[in-house]
């Protein structure tokens, strides 16, 4: 057992434990906090795989953005100290069986598949390499999706403001 393996299993237990608690917690606010731990573990996994930029994006966007947004929406819509309504027992059993069996199928498929790695020289996923390729206009550049995504973000921004506006009371 080297340190690397131990770190991987610690990260995996944080991710999976946080995930399981997030989908089973009784109080909705606790559920959001467990989700935060799970996302933090995933950022740690990206650090573990040496994808520092993705890890930073994960922390900034998911932990700093989406979880905070979810917590705000909980405060706007719930009495967050109360327990949530329990799901029906039959639905819990059926969903758990479906998830477990599908998971077993996927795991056995992965276990029996032999993956073939490329022999090309590796490109380091540094910020420099990512930025150069993302904004390049040559064949392998990602400038067009970049611009399309910026339009999408603008549309989502305006759309969410319009949807969440208070309707004008008729005078």
């Amino acid at each position, binding site marked *: 057992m080297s340190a690397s393996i131990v770190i991987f299993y610690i990260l995996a237990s944080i*991710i999976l434990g946080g995930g399981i608690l997030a*989908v089973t917690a009784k109080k909705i606010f606790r559920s959001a906090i467990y989700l935060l731990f799970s996302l933090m573990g995933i950022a740690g996994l990206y650090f573990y795989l040496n994808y520092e930029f993705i890890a930073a994006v994960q922390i900034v966007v998911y932990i700093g953005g989406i979880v905070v947004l*979810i917590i705000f929406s909980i405060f706007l819509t719930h009495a967050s100290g109360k327990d949530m309504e329990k799901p029906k027992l039959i639905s819990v059993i059926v969903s758990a069986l479906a998830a477990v069996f599908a998971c077993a199928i996927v795991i056995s498929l*992965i276990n029996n598949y032999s993956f073939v790695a490329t022999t090309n020289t590796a490109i380091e996923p540094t910020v420099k390499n990512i930025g150069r390729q993302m904004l390049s206009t040559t064949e392998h550049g990602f400038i067009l999706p970049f611009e399309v995504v910026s339009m*999408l973000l603008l549309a989502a921004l305006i759309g969410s403001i319009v949807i969440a506006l208070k309707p004008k009371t008729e005078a």
Partner: protein
Amino acid sequence: MNEIGLTHILFLSAILFFIGVYGFLTRRNMVTMLMSIELILNSVNINFVAFNKFLHAGKLDGTFFTIFIITIAAAEAAVAIAIIIHLYRSSKSIDVNDADLMKF
């Protein structure tokens, strides 16, 4: 089991994906369903990064897909929460079984 390889990370992301699916099927509350969707999207991101690192190290495509998925997930969460807040204003509940505004 001497080294952490691709299969370990794929097992992790598969289990996380089905945890998200379980949450999506059992929860009847829109905010918690949105959290389950975030778990599912994150497991997909882990897959992209792992495939990029272990199988296609000569390209950065998995990295770009992960970045775009994170961006689109943020936009999706913002719009979904706007819809949830609007629904709460109009019907005082965000339970999916109570939402019948668009029922014909």
